[in-house]
């Protein structure tokens, strides 16, 4: 098993090396091409030609939007689980807090009825979820491993049950309707609002843009003292603390950042659906995001993206395939079942995930050469 892991590592290192060795221009062109592809993807004239890639039975743009916000969730959770190594089973709790904050601030049906525009409510939602992350984290981050998992699980369930039972603020099962869409004043060429009910594309583009910024932010953090502290905590918390890492502070930061991204996805979700109730925040979703992170490769931003993409997009895609092959099975309904099996297989054959976290050996390759000549004099 170990030999296999080593082999995979070596292969990954070679691929990374090859990528690093490409001229800067080539890398930029590849990245830009990928981004252009992703932005073009929800257009019918574009995806209609990708018969092997597009979904058959569901609206491609809607599926892409759902996938994209699921990716955003995975990127956020990856900070908590992948980098800092804190097992958070209640990530959807933060998602719910973000969604409800937006709903309460914007909807005319909400108890407060202050009717903020969506755009203004988003930063508020992020701030509130971050705060809820700090409030939850302050007492619980002293716990480790399984205990933390149980507490976060409880948190998510508390949020959901409160939303379901509370009539005063959360409207119980009836939920909160009439949440405004983002930027209603932005009109398209047909005089309709760009962010409407029918067309999911603008929401996808918005989420995609947010994902890009979040990924850049997370990358900046992981390639800094903060990221080193997170990995050190994950590897050996006691040793990290003795080496001067304020472990509690950085765990709390990881928690707060993860929560903020979760809240941001919740805000997007509320803005798209324009209606939320507690049913949107089932526990299985928390587990599914976690599974996506593990599947993709905890501790690697792009691993989380790929994991989330596979987790959400593939079942939708297979649904169409089933239909095309004349099968009566709706594969999407068996998503969790198939997913469980895939995870077990992954844990046996590739426990590090599809795109595992790799320490950035190549980044220092040039420094190594630089250091070698001075070796003799030292």
């Amino acid at each position, binding site marked *: 098993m170990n030999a296999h892991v080593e082999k995979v590592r070596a292969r990954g290192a070679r691929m990374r090396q090859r990528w690093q060795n490409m001229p800067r221009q080539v890398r930029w062109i590849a990245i830009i091409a990928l981004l252009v592809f992703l932005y073009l993807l929800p257009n019918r004239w574009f995806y209609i030609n990708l018969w092997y890639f597009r979904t058959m039975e569901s609206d491609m743009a809607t599926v892409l939007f759902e996938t994209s916000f699921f990716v955003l969730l995975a990127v956020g959770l990856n900070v908590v689980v992948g980098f800092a190594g804190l097992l958070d089973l209640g990530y959807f709790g933060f998602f719910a807090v973000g969604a409800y904050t937006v709903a309460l601030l914007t909807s005319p049906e909400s108890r407060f009825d202050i009717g903020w525009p969506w755009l203004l409510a988003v930063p508020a939602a992020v701030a509130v979820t971050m705060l809820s992350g700090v409030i939850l984290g302050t007492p619980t981050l002293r716990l480790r491993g399984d205990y933390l998992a149980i507490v976060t699980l409880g948190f998510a369930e508390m949020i959901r049950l409160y939303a379901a039972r509370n009539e005063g603020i959360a409207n119980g099962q009836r939920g909160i309707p009439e949440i405004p869409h983002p930027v209603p004043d932005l009109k398209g060429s047909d005089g309709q609002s760009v962010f409407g009910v029918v067309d999911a594309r603008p929401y996808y583009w918005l989420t995609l843009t947010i994902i890009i910024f979040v990924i850049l932010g997370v990358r900046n953090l992981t390639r800094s003292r903060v990221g080193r502290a997170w990995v050190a905590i994950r*590897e050996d918390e006691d040793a*990290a603390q003795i080496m001067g890492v304020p472990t509690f502070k950085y765990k709390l930061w990881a928690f707060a950042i993860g929560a903020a991204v979760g809240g941001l996805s919740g805000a997007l979700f509320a803005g798209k659906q324009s209606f939320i109730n507690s049913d949107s925040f089932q526990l299985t979703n928390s587990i599914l995001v976690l599974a996506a992170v593990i599947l993709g490769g905890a501790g690697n931003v792009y691993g989380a993206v790929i994991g989330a993409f596979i987790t959400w997009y593939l079942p939708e895609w297979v649904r169409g395939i089933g239909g095309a092959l004349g099968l009566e099975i709706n594969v999407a309904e068996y998503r969790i079942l198939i997913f469980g099996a895939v995870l077990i297989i992954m844990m046996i054959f590739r426990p590090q995930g599809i795109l595992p976290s790799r320490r950035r050996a190549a980044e220092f390759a040039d420094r190594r050469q630089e250091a070698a000549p001075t070796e003799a004099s030292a």
Partner: protein
Amino acid sequence: MTDTADKAPDTTATDTPPPQREALLEVDHVTLRFGGVVALNDVNFTLYKGEILGLIGPNGAGKTTCFNAMTGVYTPTQGEIRFRGERVSGRARHKITQLGIARTFQNIRLFPEMTALENVMVGADAHHKTSVPSALFRLPRFWKEERSGRDRAHDLLRFVSIERPGELARNLSYGEQRRLEIARALATSPTLLCLDEPAAGFNPAEKDALLKLIRKIRDTGVTVLLIEHDMRLVMGVTDRIVVLEFGKKIAEGLPAEVRDNPAVIAAYLGVPTDAA
């Protein structure tokens, strides 16, 4: 190296450290109990600035416990430990590191999935001020600290002769891992470096290299506390030795004195019942 040899006679010339030597760490009548077990019993000694102090004793004598108490892992039941006059226990462990006490571990505890360079940079970060906001927005202070931390890490890796800074810690050889721990501890800019059996599992050649490294560290102005089983290493490198047995200090003095101390010989070799 010759430098150290020149200094050595000075210290051997006097029986006790001259009073003008500045006390760095004071272990002041420390008792540490775990339930009914007395791990340390009224242990009392002082570590002076610039010296290499050996802490020896048979297995289970309380060396590592003493060590853990000094680095703030355990709080003494009675007595206290002062570092530059300030109480050590009761502080968060990372604060103690910032105070200037660094340590290595008896069983190597590196961050295996990080590169050698990153391991050392974690230590260097101990005195850095950047946090999430400046790292997120790549403020000038971030670049400044990142660069200085990286340069320092490279210097330290060269200092302990690790030639592959980009290698994952887990892929380094055993000896390199031990030296990497030392580099990581040094990166926190300590005044006091505590080494917990750094030569465990070393062959004679490696032990010699380690001996030289420890002297080199002392020559940079760092005080060293050394726990070690290997007598040759301890006798060869330390300025003074404290001997523990069953949680009690049974001897303290220059290496030569300690070597001839009957109590120490008894502790290590055992005493025939009729002689006792």
